[in-house]
């Protein structure tokens, strides 16, 4: 029982009268890397907002380490859960170092200053995420993908046990994306961090995540180990596309059904 980090119990949500997400239940184990897949508007982001405690479900409960996530104060929650949402924009010329070091904030008392260990840790994370070269640059001067890498570095500085990424790697170039996701996988394995991410890039989702959750019209179609889901039926029912499956668990998507 101890290794379950997040448990959804019959969560439902609606934006107007018609239920959008209806009665979802599942558990997520510690150290797992989970990709949520689905069409646009299938409820992925809404589900992620509910799971990360940003949005209150209309029914059901979300339990983080067996405690109701809404019973934990924002600051306590931020010590253990980090989230990066799509399209982080900022109008103010903070330096990238300042942005990344905001990740240390939940671990500090008000007005407590950063000590040498904090700065060293931030530097280490910036080097790992290859954002160290932006250190003194203003966040407003970076390109979209570079800015996103800085925000991702900030989330890692939070030392989360559970990390949510809502299409946060979508606008990285392919090499940066693979580099970042494999870095995440390494942290997952070494530090028992759990990652739940929404991605549109199917190849990196299947390559790196332990489990895949597929959503359609607010319902969960699949939630299983990624290896087991590589079949024609999966691509057809989730995305409505035709895929060729090759013997070594590789696939190639070529047309609409």
């Amino acid at each position, binding site marked *: 029982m101890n290794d379950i980090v997040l448990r959804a119990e019959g969560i439902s949500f609606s934006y107007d009268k018609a239920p959008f997400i209806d009665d979802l239940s599942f558990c997520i184990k510690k150290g797992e890397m989970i990709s949520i897949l689905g069409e646009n508007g299938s409820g992925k982001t809404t589900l992620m907002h509910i799971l990360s405690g940003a949005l209150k479900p209309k029914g059901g409960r979300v339990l983080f380490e067996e405690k109701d996530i809404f019973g934990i104060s924002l600051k306590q929650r931020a010590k253990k859960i980090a*989230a990066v949402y799509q399209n982080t924009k900022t109008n103010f010329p903070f330096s990238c170092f300042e942005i990344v070091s905001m990740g240390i904030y939940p671990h500090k008392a008000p*007005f407590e200053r950063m000590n040498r260990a904090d700065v060293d840790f931030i530097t280490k994370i910036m080097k790992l995420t290859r954002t160290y070269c932006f250190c003194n640059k203003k966040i407003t001067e970076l390109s979209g993908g570079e800015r996103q890498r800085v925000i991702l570095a900030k989330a890692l500085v939070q030392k989360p046990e559970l990390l949510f990424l809502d299409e946060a790697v979508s606008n990285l170039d392919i090499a940066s994306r693979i580099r970042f996701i494999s870095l995440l996988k390494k942290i997952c394995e070494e530090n028992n961090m759990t990652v739940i991410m929404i991605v549109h890039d199917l190849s990196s989702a299947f390559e790196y995540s332990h489990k895949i959750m597929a959503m359609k019209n607010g319902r969960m179609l699949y939630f299983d180990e990624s290896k087991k889901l590589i079949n024609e039926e999966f691509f057809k029912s989730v995305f409505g596309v035709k895929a060729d499956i090759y013997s070594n668990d590789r696939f190639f998507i070529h047309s609409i059904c």
Partner: protein
Amino acid sequence: MFLGGRYLDIYKKLNEDKIKIFFLFLILMFFLFITIFASLNMGAMKISFLQILKIVIGKIFSKQELLSEIKSNVTAVVWEIRLPRILCSILVGAGLATSGVIFQAILQNPLADPYTVGVSTGASFGASLIIFLNISYGLCLPISLGAMIFAGLTLAAVIIIAGRGVSWESSDLIMAGIIVSSFFSSGISLLKLLSGENVSAIVFWLMGSFSSKSWKDVFFISPMIFFGIALTMFNAQSLNIMTLGDDNAKALGVNASLTRLICLIIGSLLSAFCVCVCGIIGFVGLIVPHLLRYRLSADNKILIPFSALSGALLLCIADNITRTLASGEIPVGILTTLIGGPFFVYIFIKRKKTGGVSI
């Protein structure tokens, strides 16, 4: 691969930066004191620095022997006329600049200013209403009372309109501000129309001036200004984090909606108190935080004290110019906008040319 050599020790560099910033603050502080003394020297009556020094020290430490050798009318000019006016301009400058920082931060817009949310328009309407009533019915109501009441009403209206939904979005606040502000602007126009040939009283008050400010005004605004700046400093780190957007702020443990509401109230009160004392003074609250953010630091912990100090310095100097250069006194609000407008266009164009992100 990593530019290791250039930032060998970030921790050391951060500490060095802190010391630099601290010294810069001291230098500005020193400049402010110099400006106060220089300002006391300016004016129609020629008073020497030595006399000024004697009067100020004599008054502060109540040493009668220093004051006895100076004519009482000289003492009165320095202590009762010039000093309160100078202190008022400093306090209002600090208040407006701090309020500007707050509004730019909570509205996530580097072009916001203390008047964006419309509370100051409400305060102006209140003041105009009192002036109108005083003139029309021969009453003697205090102008600041009307300004404060209407500032409060406006703030409540903005909060009710913008806070309808679950959260406090910055676009909702701007929208509510525009609605309320235009409503009260029309109200002011109506009052001007109704007051007929006495319209100049309202017009002059609205133009923003520090003429005939007394110690009473200094004591009226100083608690709010100091309290407001202190409270803003308390929220500085949360304001920093809110720059990443409400969702990200929440993920970092900052309740963005609550912080926005608290800071909205502080910023509105600061600007309302300033409007109460001296009417509308444009551009200080916009330009000072905006410039410092790009030149010095975007970090609100640094930006707030520096904006307050620079705003104080700027408005004090601007008031001196209006007081001494023009033969008849022009309201300082006109001067700040006359100089501030073109200056703002200049930095705006310059930033576009240098290829930086424009605003």
